[in-house]
């Protein structure tokens, strides 16, 4: 027995020892690193930062108390230099330190504020691009994220001397390590930051809480990715009640991205002894609108209370409590709206101004002000987390939570929509609902019941403080579940649909819907993608300005009212997608060509969208140039000694644009063959273009297209999404019409019509199955070349031009060129026979049923 007691004491001593607890904490952090790498959470830079934080945590853990704050400050500076490089890192630090120094110049406080304000205006002018800055534009978003709001809090606390100030505190506060990677960062309060550092006796409990929050953040981010990759749809795709439900619910669920990032970043700060409070608390289960405001983004709420609400309230309270409460609430929501736009300015260089943004914040202000008045006049009891709660109160709160969730979901979907009219158009399906939709009722009631049960559970649970090792066990279990959910081995045992859904957990990029819309330049049209779509927002923050689509580049292209929607400017040159582009005198991204082909030269006209244009690679690296060069190196095609491939491809072209450009430009240069490159998005491409033409009431020279509009009951001037929704069921018919029209025009000019299907690197929404697409092409009369699987087996991320753009890079173009060259060789006999038919104009008929299967000729 004595021996057992001794063993127990020894075990307890070991378990409580500094070294053993470090090993337990460090081991969990190693699992976190694995998780970040496994799911590719927040990209490679974050992976590097996580390693730095793990190493920094180890050093900080064993440092004496007085060295910890300077160490964190220096580590943060090191992080900035490591991420931005010595030159740009030095600029960022110099700008920041200058602003901090201006806050402390020995002048009256008002004068200091004026000086800081002046410096801020100068920096804002530089940020807007009106004046050239000597540093890289890449540092602006991070600089803005560090100083745009924190400086307000810092000055406020400086004025009221609400916390101690020192060089190391200021350095740590503004440059705090995780901020170098996360542009969307919680507004940490200076006073709280200072007050909570190393304030708790048992540091290991704070560190463990930090790991808990990091794991919780990872859970939010993985759930977010699951939702983002699988759930979002557009208003134009809402054709029935289930889709309306889906359309309304996904935007609010995407907020998991923000809550996940904030848990992650604040959890990291806890690892350095900053015992900060929670950033979010079960916000989906808020039981009233005031409760919602208190639970979602708690740091923002605290910032607003401190700097706006309390000052407004104390100034007005003599005029009546209710008036002060309501005015204070509206001041807070106005400040929230304005400061979100202010944050946006530092991230993107322009202010965010959307009517649905204003409507969202105004609606929320009214709802919260109403709830504030109710609560002020009917105070409710609070409960201790450890105490028991009456059932009646819990049930009332659970139903309240359901009501708030439904209301916020509706508001959020409106906020995230492209416009209020776009959002309202989705509700058109309610009028078409019939008894066939009744099955949805038990589903909705079931979901509501699950929600109520969850709300009841979290409302009634008693939160006893957990011991250190119980916390470790909980976090460890969650980490293992996350790692198992992402395991390919586990996914291979699930049914196919489920494994496809889970496989997307590893896809950090745009979902198919956003990828398809961005490919069409859709979001640039909006020009104000905010944080309600985090993946897009991230792209637009880091993407250089020369990645704007060509329709927004009047120096390189001109847009048309009708078809084609865009034409390259003859002789124009400049930078586009970070490469030099130059267009020839005929408005092609190619060298100059004579009006007629030289004798014994076979001329192919290449038409199609952006990858055929060779977006993001040099012209000579594009598959058009590579195939042309290779065919000529091999001695031409058949009896033709030379081959010319004229590149008429233009980003964003659909079958309708191709039809128009063929008539306007291509046939004038007398090609022997027309090679049309298509993707699986071609069906939605024609739908979008036709909807756009109808909406803008542009002149349409094709009677067949207007017939589709009449059949779909789409009048000129119709709302674009409504028109697209009406055309979508007819997309195959419209595509078939466009292909037939193009084929007929080729045949009448003895031009051999070829169509090459080239896969996209990333998934897209609105896809047509490849056999359907090629079937339509063959039915129209095209000779088809199927390049399916051209990128097979390779990591798509290594073949794309940038992390945010999945057009093929030079290596990708080489793969396509190899397959295209082989496919052309396979149909060579059909190509050069064309001249034999030129005299009798009979070409094409024999080509109708032909096709080259995947891998054909290779």
């Amino acid at each position: 027995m004595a021996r057992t007691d001794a063993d127990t004491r020894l075990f307890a001593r070991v378990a409580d020892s500094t070294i053993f607890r470090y090993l337990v904490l460090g081991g969990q952090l190693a699992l976190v690193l694995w998780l970040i790498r496994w799911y590719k959470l927040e990209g490679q830079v974050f992976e590097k930062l996580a390693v730095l934080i793990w190493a920094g945590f180890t050093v900080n853990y064993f440092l004496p108390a007085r060295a910890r704050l300077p160490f964190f400050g220096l580590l943060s500076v090191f992080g900035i230099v490591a991420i931005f490089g010595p030159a740009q890192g030095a600029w960022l630090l110099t700008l920041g330190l200058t602003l901090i120094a201006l806050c402390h110049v020995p002048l009256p406080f008002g004068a200091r504020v004026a000086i800081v304000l002046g410096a801020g205006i100068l920096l804002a002018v530089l940020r807007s691009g009106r004046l050239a800055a000597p540093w890289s534009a890449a540092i602006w978003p991070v600089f803005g994220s560090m100083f745009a709001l924190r400086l307000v809090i810092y000055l406020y606390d400086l004025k009221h001397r609400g916390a101690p100030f020192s060089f190391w505190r200021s350095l740590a506060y503004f440059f705090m390590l995780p901020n170098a990677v996360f542009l969307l960062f919680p507004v940490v309060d200076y006073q709280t930051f200072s007050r909570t550092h190393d304030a708790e006796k048992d540091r290991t409990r704070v560190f463990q809480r930090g790991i808990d929050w990091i794991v919780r953040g990872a859970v939010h981010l993985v759930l977010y990715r699951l939702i983002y990759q699988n759930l979002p749809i557009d208003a134009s795709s809402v054709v029935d009640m289930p889709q309306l439900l889906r359309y309304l619910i996904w935007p609010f669920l995407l907020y998991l991205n923000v809550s996940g990032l904030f848990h992650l970043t604040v959890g990291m700060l806890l690892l350095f002894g900053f015992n900060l409070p929670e950033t979010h608390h079960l916000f989906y289960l808020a039981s009233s609108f005031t409760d919602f405001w208190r639970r979602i983004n708690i740091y923002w709420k605290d910032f607003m209370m401190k700097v706006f609400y309390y000052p407004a309230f104390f100034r007005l309270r003599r005029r009546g409590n209710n008036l002060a409460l309501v005015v204070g609430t509206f001041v807070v929501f106005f400040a929230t709206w304005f400061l979100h736009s202010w944050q946006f300015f530092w991230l993107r260089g322009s202010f965010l101004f959307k009517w649905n943004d204003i409507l969202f914040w105004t609606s929320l202000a009214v709802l919260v002000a109403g709830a504030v008045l109710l609560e002020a006049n009917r105070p409710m009891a609070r409960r201790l987390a450890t105490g028991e709660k009456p059932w009646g109160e819990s049930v009332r709160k659970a139903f309240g939570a359901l009501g708030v969730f439904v209301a916020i979901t509706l508001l959020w979907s409106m906020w995230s929509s492209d416009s209020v009219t776009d959002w309202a158009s989705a509700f058109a399906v309610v009028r078409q609902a019939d008894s066939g939709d009744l099955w949805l009722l038990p589903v909705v009631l079931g979901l509501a019941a699950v929600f109520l049960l969850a709300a009841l559970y979290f409302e009634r649970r008693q939160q006893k403080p957990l011991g250190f090792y119980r916390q470790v066990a909980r976090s460890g279990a969650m980490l293992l579940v996350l790692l198992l959910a992402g395991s390919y081995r586990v996914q291979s045992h699930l049914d196919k649909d489920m494994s496809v859904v889970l496989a997307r957990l590893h896809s950090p990029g745009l979902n198919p819907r956003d990828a398809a819309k961005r490919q069409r330049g859709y979001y640039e049209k909006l020009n104000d993608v905010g944080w309600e779509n985090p993946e897009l927002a991230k792209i637009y923050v880091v993407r250089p300005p020369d990645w704007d689509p060509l329709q927004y580049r009047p120096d390189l292209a001109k847009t048309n009212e009708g078809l084609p929607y865009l034409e390259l400017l003859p002789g124009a040159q400049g930078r586009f997608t970070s490469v030099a582009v130059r267009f020839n005198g005929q408005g092609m991204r190619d060298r100059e060509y004579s009006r007629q082909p030289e004798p014994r030269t076979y001329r192919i006209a290449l038409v199609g969208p952006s990858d055929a244009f060779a977006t993001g690679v040099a012209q000579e690296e594009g598959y058009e140039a590579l195939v042309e060069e290779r065919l000529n190196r091999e001695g031409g095609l058949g009896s033709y000694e030379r081959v010319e491939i004229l590149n008429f491809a233009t980003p964003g072209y659909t079958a309708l644009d191709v039809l128009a450009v063929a008539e306007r430009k291509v046939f004038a240069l007398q090609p022997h063959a027309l090679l049309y490159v298509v993707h699986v998005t071609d069906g939605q491409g024609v739908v979008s273009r036709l909807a756009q033409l109808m909406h803008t009431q542009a002149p349409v020279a094709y009677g067949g297209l207007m017939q589709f509009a009449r059949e779909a009951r789409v009048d000129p001037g119709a709302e674009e999404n409504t028109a697209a929704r009406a055309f979508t069921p007819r997309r195959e018919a419209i595509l078939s019409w466009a292909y037939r029209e193009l084929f007929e025009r080729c045949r009448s000019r003895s031009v051999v019509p070829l169509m090459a299907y080239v896969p996209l690197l990333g998934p897209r929404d609105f896809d047509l199955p490849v056999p359907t697409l090629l079937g339509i092409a063959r039915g129209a009369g095209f000779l088809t070349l199927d390049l399916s699987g051209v990128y097979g087996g390779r990591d798509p991320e290594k073949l794309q031009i940038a992390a945010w753009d999945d057009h093929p890079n030079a290596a990708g173009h080489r793969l396509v060129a190899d397959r295209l060259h082989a496919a052309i060789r396979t149909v060579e006999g059909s190509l050069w026979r064309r001249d034999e038919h030129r005299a009798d104009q009979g070409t094409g008929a024999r080509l109708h049923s032909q096709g080259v299967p995947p891998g054909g000729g290779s």
Partner: protein
Amino acid sequence: MRAYILKEFLPGEDPEQLTDSLSLIDGRILDSLATLRLVAFLEEAFGFEFAAHEVGAQNLDNLNLIAGFVASKQK
């Protein structure tokens, strides 16, 4: 102060649970409206006025802090 907080904000709760160091604001017992009610009570009971920047967890997060703050205002 303890009696006021128990009566106004935590009716029916075990008084033993309201320790001197129990976090009221960071622990989500006092929200902004409850904090303003507590401020009004303290102003009336102890005869001083709060400034806006004095309202927050730094002065009101637990009974110890509240007592210390009230004492400092009465000096």
